[in-house]
């Protein structure tokens, strides 16, 4: 990222030299508005009285407002349950992914054992295997383990992330040799070394992979769509279409459902924007 000291001079330069700055900013604003209008529209429709419909676009945004739709949907549908499922599955998936990838990355980075390179290359192969193309046999495997239609079946197939191992390994490689050696001389076991010394040093990488995994799981559609059969286990991406399919021209209730599904992530985004952006640029460039 640009250094702070020079950004001031940049600013000065821009002011002086870019005659089109105003035009560019206007274009930027127009696009930004276009990007968020659908989301704002969704929020406004969700607080209109149930059954409201209009052919005048402005009227969607005008009062009367009501929050009764929220109450109705929360009481009569499983949306909160799906919200919880999505969160729970994403959370556990993230934790497990971080746990097993960091353990494996630590072994490959810091430990000595036979066939290490071979094993690492074997893990690297996973980068080339697209999950979407093996989903049909995956279904059969999970079915034969009797895990179809369960949280476990939803989570376990998603945790072995080769990308995570690679990023963490390169991060662990950067831990100074002296630190490791002195710890070993002090009689530190590998597990202690792992969680007391190496893991804390890898915080940025862990945060980035964590955010990336969480968003990925939150938005995962294909696997829950195939493997979950019970309404009570649906995640939001699978449950919402089922809920919405009963309404095709009634706008208000589906929009309320969509809003309920979106408000927590919008809030989370507003709070963690910086971390999310960092996480994406960190993992995105690598993989």
């Amino acid at each position, binding site marked *: 990222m640009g250094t702070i000291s020079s950004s001031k001079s940049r600013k000065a330069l821009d002011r002086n030299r870019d005659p*089109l700055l105003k035009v560019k900013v206007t274009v930027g604003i127009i696009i930004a508005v276009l990007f*968020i209008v659908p989301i704002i529209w969704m929020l406004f429709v969700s607080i209109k009285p149930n059954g409201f419909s209009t052919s005048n676009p402005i009227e969607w945004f005008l009062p009367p407002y009501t929050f009764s739709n929220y109450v109705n949907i929360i009481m009569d549908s499983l949306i909160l349950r799906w919200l919880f499922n999505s969160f729970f599955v994403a959370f556990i998936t993230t934790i497990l992914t971080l746990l097993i990838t960091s353990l494996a990355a630590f072994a490959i980075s810091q430990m000595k054992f036979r066939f290490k390179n071979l094993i690492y290359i074997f893990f690297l192969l996973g980068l*080339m295997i697209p999950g979407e193309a093996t989903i049909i*046999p995956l279904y059969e495997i999970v079915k034969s383990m009797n895990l179809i239609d369960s949280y476990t079946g939803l989570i376990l197939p998603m945790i072995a992330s080769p990308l995570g191992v690679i990023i963490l390994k390169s991060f662990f490689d950067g831990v100074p040799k002296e630190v490791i050696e002195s710890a070993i001389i002090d009689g530190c076991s590998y597990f202690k070394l792992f969680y007391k010394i190496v893991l804390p040093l890898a915080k940025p990488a862990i945060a980035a992979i964590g955010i990336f995994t969480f*968003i990925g799981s939150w938005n995962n559609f294909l696997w829950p769509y195939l493997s979950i059969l019970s309404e009570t286990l649906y995640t939001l991406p699978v449950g919402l279409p089922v809920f919405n399919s009963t309404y095709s021209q009634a706008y208000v209730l589906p929009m309320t459902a969509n809003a309920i599904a979106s408000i927590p992530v919008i809030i989370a985004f507003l709070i963690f924007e910086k971390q999310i952006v960092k996480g994406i640029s960190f993992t995105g460039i690598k993989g």
Partner: protein
Amino acid sequence: MNKKVWIKDVKAIPFLLPFFFAYLLFTILPIFKGLQMSLYDWNLVRKMDFVGLENYVEMFNDPYFWQTLWNTTLFVILTTPTMVLLALGLALLANLNTKLKTFFRGSYFLPSILSVAVISFLAIFMLQPYSGLVNTMIQALGINAEPFWLADKTLAWVSIVGVTLWWSVGFNMILFLTSLQEIPDTYYEASEIDGASRWEQFRYITLPQLIPIGRVIILLQILASYKVFGQILLITGGGPGGATRPLIQYIYETGFTQNNLGYAATMSYALFFILLILSIIQLKNQRLEES
């Protein structure tokens, strides 16, 4: 000495085993299981007869396999260049030195965090004929038209591509933005002294510096677009008349709706090889970057 090596191996096992096990079971095993399934007449209830290469023969003669593969490819062709250009444009806007910087970045990225189900239904409701927000806006502007965004073949593609761009351009924009911010200001300052114009600065400093990340984005985008499924299934259902149905939807329908997992596994193999080749190219490219 031998014993020591052995002890070291044992010590590594608890660290490696959890990942190794999950990886073997859910990433590697499906490849072989898929091969087996593709050789059988296999349905959701039970494995049936061994049919040899019959599923593969069927695939090569199946016009819907080719049509859906083409649809997916068309999606890749339509979204990749537009995505890269839009992402670049938005990154440049979000990199302007104004007070609105974070607002720009935030609003361009905001749709990306919404679930595919949400953006699809927003799209459906906005694009609905007779009462949708888009058509009523068009009419409010005094244009007397009633475009069928999702029922007309061409417009359906326009809609799908438009919605996909809106939804996922934020991710790529951030990658560009990060690279833009990494370009040392001294480059610009130096060129300033040489009297370069803004356009020349963009052409000879900014753009060349963005080429590496641009290449990464293009490849990531192609790879991701070949996996398109959710938003098309939810917005057009693959319609009108199968005109937007992507390969993964056809695989899903064959396996689950038509109850023919064997043939679905066969077509998955075709997708597997396409994606495999693409990711090898992508990894090679990355090596190139790193060296």
